[in-house]
């Protein structure tokens, strides 16, 4: 019986490590009280505010950034976006000043390629655990 050497077919693969970036954004309405703001807050509203900010700054073509809102808690959300578009999201958030006639502030606080790092805040941990011992 002849032995036929089996060869693995040549494959072209490209692995991209951490293709997505996770950005923590917080949306606040400066001219509304906390109750009205929390009543109006929703995932669709967050998406609309961010989309409008992207379109204003980068136009129709430049602002067609695909992003996902993973979690919305109170007025903060974790947004997943391709790492090549992370700078656009951050810049659009910084330039967003109004929505629907209301003054808003859309601030990006953290950005990480790892979702796990969004679960904890090292500064908050240091403030509660380390700072008291330092006096």
């Amino acid at each position, binding site marked *: 019986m002849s032995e036929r050497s089996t060869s693995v077919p040549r494959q072209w693969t490209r692995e991209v490590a951490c293709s997505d970036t996770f950005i923590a954004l917080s949306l606040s309405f400066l001219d509304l009280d906390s109750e009205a703001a929390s009543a109006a807050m929703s995932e669709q509203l967050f998406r609309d505010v961010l989309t409008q900010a992207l*379109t204003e700054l980068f*136009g129709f*073509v*430049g*602002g067609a950034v695909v992003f996902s809102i993973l979690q919305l808690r109170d007025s903060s959300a974790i947004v997943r976006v391709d790492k090549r578009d992370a700078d656009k999201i951050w810049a659009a958030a910084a*330039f967003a000043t109004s929505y629907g006639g209301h003054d808003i502030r859309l601030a990006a606080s953290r950005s990480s390629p790892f979702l796990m790092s969004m679960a904890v805040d090292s500064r908050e941990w240091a403030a509660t655990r380390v700072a008291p011992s330092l006096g």
Partner: protein
Amino acid sequence: MVRLKNRYLLLEISWKDGKLDESYNDNVLLQALRDSVALNFGDFGLGSNLSSLQVKYYSPYTDVGIVRCATAEHERVVAALALMTDVRQRPAAVRVLRVAGTLATCKEAAVARSAEKLLRTRLGRQHQANAEQLHQQVSALEL
């Protein structure tokens, strides 16, 4: 010293109504191009192009024009030209015939294209004189 490089785009406008309107000059084209850049690429795109974007030449008789833009922005400008559907509410399509690194190369192509269109276009006596005068100005373009 960092050298500021430009790209010169030779373009041709096809008007849907096929008519001649002498009021459409290089200023009108520049404003329409800026509006298209602002609509499609936003404040960021418009701000990047504000200093470098310029219509060097445009003839409403041959519908041939030369636009200058920065090298880093020429893809956005070409895309904005392709996405233009009208110029001052007059339906039109813009085609980019050539992208050149120097004005001299673009001028040569513009002279050839303009001469070819002048031969094919039938104009009145006054319009013909104005068209040929504009055609002569292509060769005299400077940076």
